[in-house]
Every structure is written in C-alpha cells, then in structure tokens.
C-alpha cells in the first residue's frame, strides 16, 4: 500500500481524499475531513454501485482525455474530475501541469476532418483570427486564436482525418 491520500478536483473544488479502510466492497474514506462509510462494488467495468446510508447510486468513471482526468456519470449528471497525486503536483510545479500544454497547440475536442487551413508556418495572426476549420457529422467548426500569435507549425493537411485533442496547429 503506497499512497492513500490524493487531491481530487471537481469543478472549482479541490477535495482532500484519503482511504481509511477497505475490505472488499466496504470502504471507509475521508473527503475533506468528512468520513464516509460506503459499500462500493465494482459491478461492471468502470461502474461502481455505491450504497451510502442505504441510498443507492451507480457511478460510472471513464478515463478522460488526459491522464488522471475522468468523466463521471451519476444519474443525469456528467461531471469531470481530476486526480492530483504527488506526481501530478510535481509536474504542475514544473509548469507541465494540466491546462498548460494546450495553450500553444490548437486542437479539436472531437474527431473529424480538416476542411481548411487558413495559416502557414511563420504567419503572424491577430487575436480572433480563424486558423483551421474542422468538420464532423455534417457540421463545421472554426478554431481561432485568442490573442495575437505566431504560427510555429501546422501539423495536419487539408482532408486529413484527425483525432480529438490531437495538436493541429502549434502557435508561439
């Protein structure tokens, strides 16, 4: 048993979470110093059936787009969470943390096809300029720079099929 305590980010909140005891599906856990005794059974891959004070809830935890990011589904709620363990804290202290790497790469949150590239390597573009247009499922989306930027690299070509979160254009 290595590490039993991490931070978990949910919206703006960062909760301190600690495992106090675990015996099969009986789990004793502390969340922001509140102790929960829950019955959490992994009933299907990525799905926990949780009973807490006899309330029954299915919680699905899918891996998110980045390491240690999760998409959590409970009832009609879809919530994003992030585990911040010692390693993540170290990465963040070195500026490699979450949110950092995206700033100089333009990417699409969905897979799709490159319709048009409006910039070339070396271009200087103004804030709000459209850089690339991606289409998926009959709908086109434009991706813009938020500030004045210089284009360092264009990683894709028109007509390419792209993955979600793949770097498309690198800006300075």
């Amino acid at each position, binding site marked *: 048993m290595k590490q039993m305590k991490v931070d978990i980010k*949910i919206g703006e909140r960062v*909760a301190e979470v600690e495992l106090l005891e675990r015996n099969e599906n009986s789990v004793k856990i502390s969340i922001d110093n509140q102790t929960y005794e829950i019955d959490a059974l992994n*009933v299907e891959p*990525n799905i*926990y059936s949780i009973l807490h004070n006899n309330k029954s809830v299915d919680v699905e935890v899918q891996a998110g787009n980045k390491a240690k990011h999760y998409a959590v589904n409970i009832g*009609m*709620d879809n919530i994003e*969470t992030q*585990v911040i363990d010692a390693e993540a804290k170290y990465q963040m202290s070195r500026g490699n943390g979450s949110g950092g790497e995206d700033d100089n790469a333009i990417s699409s949150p969905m897979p799709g096809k490159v319709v048009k590239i409006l910039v070339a390597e070396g271009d200087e573009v103004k804030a709000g300029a459209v850089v690339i247009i991606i289409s998926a499922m*009959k709908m086109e989306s434009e991706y813009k720079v938020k500030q004045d930027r210089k284009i360092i690299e264009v990683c894709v070509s028109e007509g390419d099929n792209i993955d979600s979160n793949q770097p498309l254009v690198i800006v300075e």
Partner: protein
Amino acid sequence: MIKKILVANRGEIAIRVMHSCREMGITSVAVYSEADRNSKHVRMADEAYYIGPSASAESYLVIDNIIEAAKKSGADAIHPGYGFLSENATFSDRCKNEGITFIGPTSEVISIMGDKISARKKMVKAGVSVVPGTKENLVSDEDALRVVKEVGLPVMIKASAGGGGKGMRLVRTEEEIIPGVRAAKSEALAGFGDDTVYVEKFVENPHHIEFQILGDSHGNAVHLFERECSVQRRHQKVVEETPSPIMTPELQAKMGEQAVMATKAVNYVGAGTVEFLVDDDLNYYFLEMNTRLQVEHPITEQVTGIDLVRAQIEVADGKEIPFKQEDLHQQGHAIEARVYAEDPYSNFMPSPGLIQNISEPLGPGIRHDGYVYSGYTIPIHYDPMISKLIVWGANRDEAIDRMKRALYSYKLSGIKTNISFLSRIMESEDFAKGGYNTNFIAKNEDFLMAEREIDSEVEDMAIAATFLAFIDKTGIGTNSNKEDANCTENEWKAFGKRRGVMRLY
C-alpha cells in the same frame, strides 16, 4: 411478390426496415461504405455489399453502386429509408428502368412535390390551404400597399429569384411596407439582377404539424393522424409527439381531409407526410410534402398500431392498403426523443467516438430504435443521431413521465449525448402545458441550458468513485501495484477479482 429488399441506407433506419423484412419473411440486403463495415445494419442484414468509401457522396449517394449491389444480390425492391437517395427522382426512375421496385413514389411525384413552387401550385389546384399571398410583382408603392393589405399583416416580402434569405423582408406594420418593399427590391436587384418581389403571409412562431399519409396503386388514400414537431433546434426536430396537444377533433378532421386531398391529387403510392404550419388561432397552411418515411414515424405506429414499413412494402408490391380510414384510431399518446452524439453545453458540437457502456431502458411503453453497441465507434461521416427513444402512455402525462424515466434509465457513455437536454425538455413547464410552438427552444433556452445543480452528496460520491477507480487502476492501496502499459493484467480478470466477493458459489 417482393422477396428480397435492398436497404439503401445505414444506421437505425436501415435496421428498422430490416425488422419488418424479417417479420414478413423477406430477405434483407445491406449496403455499406468503408466506415460502416462494423455497423450494426451490416451485421443484422442477411446479405451485405460494399458500395464505396466513407464519404456518402462516394457511397450511399452513388446510384450506380447501389443499383449494382441490387442486381448482384438479386433484390427485387429497394427501400431508401430517409435522407440519402430517398427523395431523389432520378434514383426512383432508375430503379423503375432497371426493373427494381422502388419503395416510394414515382419520379414524377417526387419532382412535383420536391419543388416548393410546383408543389404549391398543385396543392392550390387540389383545394389545399397554402400560405396566403400573391405572385403579383410589386411595381409601385401603391401596388405594395394594396397587395399587402389584401394579404394582411404581418407579411414577408420575397424576391422571386431569391433564395437563402436574400431579398427577404419581414413587414409587421403599415409604416414598414414601403421601406420594406424598396429594401427587398434593391437587395434582389443587387443579388440576382432582378427586382421582382412578391408578398406572402408571415406565420409567426407557427406550430409545425404534419400528417402521415398512405396511398396505394388502386386509388386509395388514408391519413394516420398528425405528429406535432414544433420542438426544433436550427430547423432540426428534437422531440415529436402525437396527438398534437393543440389538436381538436374538428381541426383534425379538416387537416386530415386536406392531407388525403393532397395525397390523391398526385396519385401518391407509398407512405408520405404532409407538413402544415399552424398558427395560434389554429389556421393551417400547407408547407411541403415529404415523399418518404420520416424519422418520427414510430410515434404514429405506437398510437395507431400500424407497422408503416410493412404497409410501405405492401403498397409498393401492388397490394391495397389493408385498412380503411374509419378503421384507424389514435389510442393513447406517444412521444419520440432523438438521441444525438453531441454536446448540448458546447453549442451542440457533434461528438463521434467510441461507445463504452450502454444500458437501455426496459419495461412497459418503451420502444427503442437504435443502431450502436458497446465497443462501436460512431463514425464522423454521417448524421449524429444515435437512436430514438419512443414512449407510449395511456395519456399525455403518463407518456411524459415515462419519457423522463426512459431518459433517466438510458445510459450511454464514452461520448457526449443530448440525453440530459432532452430530459430538460420533458421537465419544462412549457412542454408540460403543451401549447408550445416552433419558438419553444429559443423561449425556454435559459431553463433548458441551465447547469444542473449537483447535490453535495452526489459530488462526494463522484469524488469517492473517482478515487476508487484511480486506486483500482493503478493498484495503489492494494498489494500489487506494478503497471506496464503493454503488459497490464487482463482488465476483465482484474475486474473479476475485485468482484470476487460476489461469486457466491
């Protein structure tokens, strides 16, 4: 007699057609593009033919490829589904020339009803109410004032040569008439080199109500009542229901009669839809005719008990419609909700991708027409609709409560969906009241798009589950914690182990 049907479509509608084929003892033939080799319609069909690359322009829209597949398979009929080639007159004609039964109307009917001007003329002649207006050119300001008064405010001034919203002006008050006509004319002249403009009544925030019709080759035509389709986002239907909450027996009788008149006017053979605009005073105007099966046809099936695909196949096969108008009744209430792979909270951006877990709603009054499965990757090339949840209830309230339950029970993870948005529609007061029109989504945007407030206990359970998933995955907090990307312990085995306590024998 039709014994083998090629379904020139994909996704849920291809599967829907195959259901009826199987029940009728008809062999089904699928066609598929490169992206669709693993699609459920290929797996469910009796036979499957490759028809080209992923882009629909190179596969599902290529008439030659589909005809070739039909000939190779020996299919004696083609069902076009909706979209793709379903309203393509050339395709209908081509099938006829190749000796293959096209399950849909003739090319002539498709052409007439596919063009708004010719459809309007045909309908006026048949005695069907169309949006009031004139085709008279407004040459002078006097003309303009006179004609607009005849038609009655508000009106839309439209460029005769126009399109795409250019050369159009909405006029609400008398003072706006002359400036409006002048502006439309100058925009029309600049845009199309022709300043001819005409006047049409403007129907404000109309209800979009359509009638399902069915015609056979023996001159019979019936309607199967209406569908209320006013819940639309960017002219895309999201939720449909039948009966329409604003329908009265008198209005239904009149509109139904007009729908049958429209059907008979073009000797329509097959299933089709006559769309009307209805204003809050229950005036109704023919809008257009869809010469195919609609996405929302299941709600009609649920309240009338008629299998519309079966009926389509029978009339295409030359049979008479097996029921009369007086045999048809609406029983109870049905609602359809279209589930899309999209993120309602990021401007409805499409969200194709890998489906992880699916859990479908069970039990009374629920019908599910879909095509995805756990482990299936929704391709980027086609429509983002994943499935349709259709519920039936003894009355409208029961149907709404049932739809809420169906949406709550329908779990689909790995991609973003509009399930929560659909649920919000069901929860809205305006929908519950039932008097809504096409302005519904705009009017209720704040409510529909509001972030769900998350209960603090729910939030803590999300945190707890995240934590457990994290430690279960990494092995932290258990005896073993080695992790190697290329050589992790079999996921299902690990799952089995964690679940070990439950293996009670």
